[in-house]
């Protein structure tokens, strides 16, 4: 279908964009920010949204690019998925981001879709929000009132609802470097190529000198109205020494990961019922932890 009519604004700077958004808010108009358009344009075509205007951030170079900032990697909101995947800084210092981004959509969508757009869209089926949660990323946001920072744990408020006010623009995301000794994996289960995750699991694990797990961080995709941390499984994994499956068939990792769905409220849809998603979360978490341990 053809979208309903809207006005189009191409701001010259971030300040300009914030001003347009603030004016629209004051006038009671529903204005939407346009980044890569890979989620927003399909929504407009299906007439699921009727904004009066789009504010296109696509030509603001200051919102684009990856920077190594010592203890973290800063990813500008308008950096495309393709640029994120190709970034040497991302691959070296925050490999979990590169691994998960490579599973997003398909090459053509990744050429246009953006890192920030995936976060601001706040789709619990999106692959990157769970990664942001697992890594405790920090979201840098600006409005005409100034800049503020939002921790990942507070950013994903509800289904398709980020903690962004109507006048706020996401500038970029700080992704903490976890340092040495960590292993990473993103395990995505989907039925067909290019599809969204039925369930996805983002894992970072660190082993101590003795080989036992000292810390595990697990973010779950599509296990509720927002991405969620599998806190119970994280705690259960602490101190577990991964050993080859015992001759008696015991697998301490599997036992810990069997709690991956604790505290989640997975949705029911065409692809899976909640109980099946719970099963997937447990199995995929075991696989992801195993892969992250190497």
């Amino acid at each position, binding site marked *: *279908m*053809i*979208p*309903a*009519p*809207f*006005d*189009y604004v*191409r701001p010259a700077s971030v300040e300009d964009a914030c001003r347009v958004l603030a004016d629209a808010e004051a006038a009671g108009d529903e204005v939407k920010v*346009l980044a890569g*358009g*890979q989620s927003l*344009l*399909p929504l*407009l*075509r*299906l007439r699921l949204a009727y904004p009066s205007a*789009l504010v*296109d951030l*696509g030509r603001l170079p200051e919102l684009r690019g990856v920077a190594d900032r010592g203890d973290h990697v800063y990813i500008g909101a308008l950096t495309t998925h*393709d640029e994120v995947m190709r970034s040497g800084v991302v691959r070296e210092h925050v490999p979990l981001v590169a691994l998960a981004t490579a599973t997003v*959509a*398909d*090459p*053509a*969508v990744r*050429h*246009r879709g953006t890192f920030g757009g995936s976060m601001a869209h706040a789709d619990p089926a999106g692959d990157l929000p769970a990664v942001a949660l697992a890594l405790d990323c920090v979201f840098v946001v600006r409005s005409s009132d100034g800049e503020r920072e939002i921790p990942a744990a507070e950013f994903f408020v509800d289904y398709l609802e980020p903690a962004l006010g109507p006048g706020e623009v996401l500038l970029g995301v700080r992704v903490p470097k976890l340092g040495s000794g960590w292993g990473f994996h993103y395990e995505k289960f989907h039925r067909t*190529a*290019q599809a969204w995750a039925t369930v996805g699991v983002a894992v970072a694990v660190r082993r101590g000198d003795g080989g036992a797990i000292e810390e595990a961080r697990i973010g779950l995709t599509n296990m509720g109205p927002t991405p969620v941390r599998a806190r119970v499984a994280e705690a259960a994994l602490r101190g577990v020494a991964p050993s080859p499956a015992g001759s008696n068939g015991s697998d301490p990792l599997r036992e810990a990961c069997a709690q991956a769905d604790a505290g989640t409220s997975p949705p029911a849809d065409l692809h899976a019922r909640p109980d099946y998603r719970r099963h997937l979360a447990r199995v995929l978490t075991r696989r992801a932890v195993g892969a992250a341990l190497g």
Partner: protein
Amino acid sequence: MPRITVSVDGVTYEEEVEPRLLLVHLLRDRLGKTGTPVGCDTGNCGACTVTLDGRSAKSCSVLAVQADGSEVVTVEGLARDGRWHPMQEAFHAEHALQCGYCTPGMLMAAIDLLRDDPDPSEEAVRRGLEGNLCRCTGYTNIVRAVRRAAAEMSRAPHERMPGAAEDREAAAS
């Protein structure tokens, strides 16, 4: 209405467009480039794939105003001097189409894939064409065709990628 300048298959157009006009509708309805079909409403099928400043994009998920100042190549811009692009030749030779609806998008996505990976494995071709659906399920021949074109293009490296900066330089010199 916004006025845009866009180059399509080597010709520059200046157009006044409604903001809601999709790039694919600019191509088809305004410029007569009906070689690029519309297959779906969601950005899933990839039939409308073109290259936008040298990289593949689904033209149903781009506004015409977003393409202002850009260079677009459609399936209609692939042939040179009356000769098909090697990817088109290979699709013909391997019978990589049945109904043909997905073919323009498949060709554009396949050419984009070879830019990153000039000699893709079967697995890499399947992954690279993930965003392009063939409802006739003719994937086997499509994969074969892409690998054939890759071999052909490595033998004749002068065969060019559409919309690449180096092409422009070569064309200028």
